[in-house]
């Protein structure tokens, strides 16, 4: 259903097709009743355009900013942290742990003779199991030392970042 009023509103809003617009142009020009209705709606439309907005209280902006401070709504800053860094740290730990496990299994010598005995005899640790390599690894491995140093640096870095954020939120 496309009433005269609906067609006129489409014409005023500029949402009608070119053909329709030309047809309405002609009707407005030739039909007095149509023109009167158009002028009435156009006037109404112009009054709506001129309508004034409501004004909030004077301290509105202040209250909003206070609300943000009160709620510690610092999500944009948190969200601003590069997620790739977090992914990189996570990936680093996964790779390191995987490498350590592989290295550990690779460095444990298990002889075939010990495994060929019946299962009940094998409940005890195989005699060929040599933990000296692992002890040496814990005592003197360069990789492990580097890993621990990296952990300490990372912990310091994250602590520093945490305190910086805390300080910033207090300033705000």
């Amino acid at each position, binding site marked *: 259903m496309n009433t005269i*009023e*609906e067609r006129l*509103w489409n014409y005023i*809003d500029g*949402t009608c097709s070119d053909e329709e617009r030309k047809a309405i142009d002609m009707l407005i020009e030739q039909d007095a009743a149509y023109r009167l209705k158009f002028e*009435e709606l156009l*006037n*109404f439309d112009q*009054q*709506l*355009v*001129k*309508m*004034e*907005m*409501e*004004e*909030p*209280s004077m301290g*509105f*902006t202040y*209250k*909003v*900013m206070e*609300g*943000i401070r009160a*709620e510690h*709504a610092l*999500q*944009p*800053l948190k*969200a*601003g942290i590069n997620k790739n860094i977090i992914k990189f740290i996570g990936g680093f730990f996964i790779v390191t742990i995987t490498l350590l496990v592989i290295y550990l299994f690779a460095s444990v010598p298990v002889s075939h003779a010990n495994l060929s005995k019946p299962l009940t005899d094998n409940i005890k640790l195989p005699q060929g199991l040599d933990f000296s390599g692992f002890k040496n690894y814990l005592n003197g491995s360069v990789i492990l030392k580097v890993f621990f140093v990296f952990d300490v640096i990372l912990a310091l870095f994250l602590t520093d970042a945490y305190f910086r954020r805390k300080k*910033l939120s207090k300033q*705000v």
Partner: protein
Amino acid sequence: MQSKLSDIDLIEQTLAGNQAAYADLVKRHQRFVFTLAMRFSKSREDAEEIAQDCFIKAYRSLASFQKQSKFSTWLYSIVYTTAMTFLRKKRVDTDSIDDENTYIQLENHSSGLNNDMAETKSRSYYLNQAIGQLLPDDATIITLFYMGEQSLEEIGQAVGMEANTVKVKLFRARQRLKEKLEKNLKGEVKELI
């Protein structure tokens, strides 16, 4: 200098940690957000609460703003959902404006208006009053279209409707608004509008 910055510039500054930029953004949009909130709540106190809540929510989600649409459209969608939630919480009957008591109030209010008052009160006042009597959806669409300078597509985005649905709703809302004005102002409506 700050006022010349675009919304996107202010958003980027806010995300970089400059909260003063967000305060500028609030100042820029507060009148409209408050007006829109008034369409739902009918009381200034509630409208301020809704508007404040909207700006806080917008701040929290600012990093997720995609910048594909206008900031105002995104903000108005927050206002719409926040106001709807507020209405649900308050259990406000959206048809309450048609209650007998309300009509009595309106009748009394209208009957108290003599010609002098009608002249002194602005047209804007009567329009706002009549819009306030519409259902929230109708009032929102009219407000977004005329005050928010949003296209039918943008209004559709903000309220979660198709542009064609918004077009039909806008047409009906304007008809209802005219009826309310005629009812409130009786014979004066022709002179006023």
